[in-house]
């Protein structure tokens, strides 16, 4: 493969402009990431013992990706591309080099200029990190070969066989997951009394040991060799052979396995991970509700946090002895009934005036209502009733006879949230196929025509608001009991936005998508105030959320786990284009083309 095949470019027959462009972007991205402070902040998180920290990783992936991009060839019909060869490796290397030069310039800049005023990360800490606590010359000596090497490697990825590329992908992502999931694996191995395994993989001070890294990388790389297509053919034959009853039976087995896992696993997990799972559940509950409003009925509600707040405050007023004005100190169960009533009222109250609006107008008005609700809770006017900025504290734990659900015991909270999530998932699932679900779909597609069909659009839309509101209020109620207090601060607009991102990234309208979305986003990155698995990301969460959103919109607008319908509508044109290419039709486009 390494031999320069006939018909490839000459070594110096380069598109210099392209290399300069991508190299420049590569340098800028690296400098940007450094100045944002990601490397310095995340340097504490060790991925591989005394070799690699998350901070360095944030710089290192850039030349690799840009090397890959710069040597990628656009495939056009009728134009034969030159075979990839050494010239492409050179483009990758040069891109990496320019990227590293950016870092060198940054080091020189930090030493000679004082720019700390606007750029707080223009500081010795970053300088030490970039020079490896040595001189600029030493730093350059490291960064330039590393950049060139990674750029070349990125370009090289185009020239190796798909099999090897798969092995590398498996190894890389596998290792990354192992390193990221250190806390979970740590917890799990403790739960299963397998501490020795943990000690084998991870070093004492955090991060994987070098030996375990190599062993795991090799094992992971061999994984695709072992299954090599077998799995695919098996799945394919299974798909074509299976009877409807068999399919049903299998999905029941799958479902019960997951159910058992979800119920049993928390006992083997420690407090931190259980806390994370509880947060994931709380946000999943919110996201499921918003999924009905946005995904099914197509009403872009940006003030969704209002219902979350109503749930929290209602629970606080009814259960807490510290409620300043009305304090019946009822049981959580009774307050939950009140929560349902209040959420329904709030859904109708906010829904009724905005229901005649469409699209952008609806989004803006709901955004305003969300803020109004928060400001009401904060206001001096309602202070004698709801405590103003001091909020309501001392909300008791949920008493469930033999069990008690309290914040100090995250496992109990997790089970409580799980119960609500199961209810919410069941409701969403049933609603999707129901008459109301069909009305929502019709409204989402074309409201006027839906009306012509005899659908009562006002009532259907209000129902969407109310169902969404009730689910959100459940989440708020559990949150209040978990944290033990409610403050207006907990119900900022950011909550609405993060839930919306979860729904969009997961896949609008898809229940599984929303589950995956909240697990990935809330579990790993964290919620608006809740730290995720990567606690170090706390300060950069919004940056990463934003970047992820942009990436998803560009590359996978249908979300991580989309519904079949969304995939169809978003990629149809691409498939049709591919089909037009005719001879080059790949297996995949053929299949899809037939399906269409």
């Amino acid at each position, binding site marked *: 493969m390494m031999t320069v095949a006939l018909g490839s470019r000459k070594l110096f027959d380069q598109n210099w402009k392209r290399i300069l462009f991508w190299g420049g972007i590569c340098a800028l991205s690296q400098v940007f990431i450094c100045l944002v402070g990601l490397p310095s902040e995340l340097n504490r998180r060790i991925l591989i013992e005394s070799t690699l920290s998350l901070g360095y990783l944030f710089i290192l992936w850039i030349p690799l990706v840009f090397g890959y991009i710069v040597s990628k060839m656009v495939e056009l019909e009728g134009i034969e591309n030159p075979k990839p060869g050494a010239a492409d490796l050179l483009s990758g290397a040069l891109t990496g080099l320019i990227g590293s030069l950016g870092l060198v310039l940054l080091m020189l800049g930090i030493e000679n200029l004082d720019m700390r005023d606007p750029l707080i990360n223009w500081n010795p800490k970053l300088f030490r990190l970039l020079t490896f606590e040595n001189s600029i010359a030493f730093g350059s000596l490291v960064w330039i070969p590393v950049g060139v090497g990674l750029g070349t490697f990125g370009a090289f990825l185009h020239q190796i066989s798909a099999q090897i590329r798969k092995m590398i992908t498996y190894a890389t992502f596998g290792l990354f997951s192992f390193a990221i999931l250190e806390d979970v694996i740590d917890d799990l191995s403790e739960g299963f009394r397998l501490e020795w395994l943990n000690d084998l993989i991870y070093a004492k001070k955090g991060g994987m040991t070098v030996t375990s890294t190599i062993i795991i990388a090799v094992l992971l790389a061999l994984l695709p060799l072992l299954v090599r297509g077998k799995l695919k053919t098996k799945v394919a034959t299974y798909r074509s052979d299976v009877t409807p009853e068999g399919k049903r039976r299998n999905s029941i087995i799958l479902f019960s396995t997951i159910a058992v896992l979800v119920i049993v696993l928390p006992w083997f997990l420690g407090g931190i991970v259980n806390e994370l799972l509880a947060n994931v559940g709380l946000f999943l509950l919110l996201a499921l509700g918003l999924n009905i409003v946005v995904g099914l009925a197509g009403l872009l509600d940006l003030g969704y946090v209002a219902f979350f707040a109503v749930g929290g405050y209602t629970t606080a007023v009814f259960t807490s002895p510290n409620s300043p004005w009305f304090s019946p100190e009822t049981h959580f169960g009774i307050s939950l009934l009140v929560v349902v009533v209040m959420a329904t009222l709030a859904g109708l109250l906010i829904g009724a005036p905005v229901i005649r609006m469409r699209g952008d107008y609806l989004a803006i008005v709901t955004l305003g209502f969300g803020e109004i609700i928060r400001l009401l809770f904060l206001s001096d006017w309602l202070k004698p009733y709801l405590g103003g900025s001091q909020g309501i504290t001392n909300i008791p734990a949920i008493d469930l006879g033999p069990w008690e659900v309290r914040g100090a015991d995250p496992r109990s909270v997790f089970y409580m949230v799980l119960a609500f999530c199961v209810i919410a998932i069941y409701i969403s699932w049933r609603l999707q196929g129901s*008459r109301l679900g*069909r*009305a929502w*779909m*019709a409204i989402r*597609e*074309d409201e*006027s*025509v*839906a*009306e*012509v*069909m*005899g*659908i*009562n659009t006002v009532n259907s839309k209000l129902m969407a608001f109310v169902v969404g509101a009730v689910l959100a209020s459940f989440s708020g109620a559990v949150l209040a009991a978990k944290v033990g207090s409610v403050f207006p601060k907990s119900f900022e607009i950011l909550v609405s936005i993060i839930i919306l991102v979860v729904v969009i990234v997961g896949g609008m309208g898809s229940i599984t998508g929303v589950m995956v979305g909240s697990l990935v986003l809330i579990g790993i990155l964290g919620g608006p105030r809740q730290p995720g698995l990567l606690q170090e990301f706390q300060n950069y969460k919004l940056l990463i959320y934003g970047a992820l959103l942009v990436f998803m919109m560009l590359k996978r607008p249908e979300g991580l786990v989309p519904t079949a*319908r969304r995939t*169809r*509508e978003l990629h*149809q044109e691409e498939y049709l284009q591919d089909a037009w290419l005719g001879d080059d039709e790949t297996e995949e486009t053929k299949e899809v083309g037939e399906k*269409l």
Partner: protein
Amino acid sequence: MTETALLEFRSVNTHYGAVHILKDVDLAIYPGEMVCLLGGNASGKSTTLKTLLGMVTPTSGHVLLDGEVVNDKPTSYRVTNGVTMVPENRRLFKRLTVKENLELGAYLRDDREGIEEDLENIYELFPRVKERLSQKAGTLSGGEQQMVAIGRALMSRPRVLLMDEPSMGLAPALVQQNFELIQQIHEEGMAIFMVEQNANMALSIADRGWVLQTGRVVLDDTAEALLANPELRSSYLGES
């Protein structure tokens, strides 16, 4: 006529805010007949349809369905009682499948067997539609979309079909085909109320017609008489 009109306007007036749209409009559609409403832009044709369907409430006058005043009854009531519209430009739910589109036409019905039966009837009427059931409605050709739009309307088991500019946006060859289709449905006993700009074509198949001008009915006659009317010929049929 002694027969009760299926749908009737008795001196209906409508306003959008302060703007007076329909001015003392009288119309009557009898069971099984084909009538058409002609008029230029902004003459109040669409408002007439919306008022018939209950999406606009008249400020004065009466809308009658089977002789009963239905001014305050919602769209759903009228759809259940046999009034359906095929919207302008077909307006299918583009991202839903053809089957889902048809089923939404029967949204207000809950007789499962009846719905199945009607689906079969539609497949018989439009074999092309049956081949495309699981396809997204937006991917169909103009002619196929027209079939689905009519099929969707038929799914509510209407007695009168309100058609908003059925020939709009169709290729000339399809316009002819479309009118034949409408005639075919009409011959099976369906009353049809057509709003058209293509006056020649519409009058050639209709029994009676009205001409609407700035919200007022200026002509009300049989189709032949209207076709022969020199005033109409000059203003609508482009003859001098």
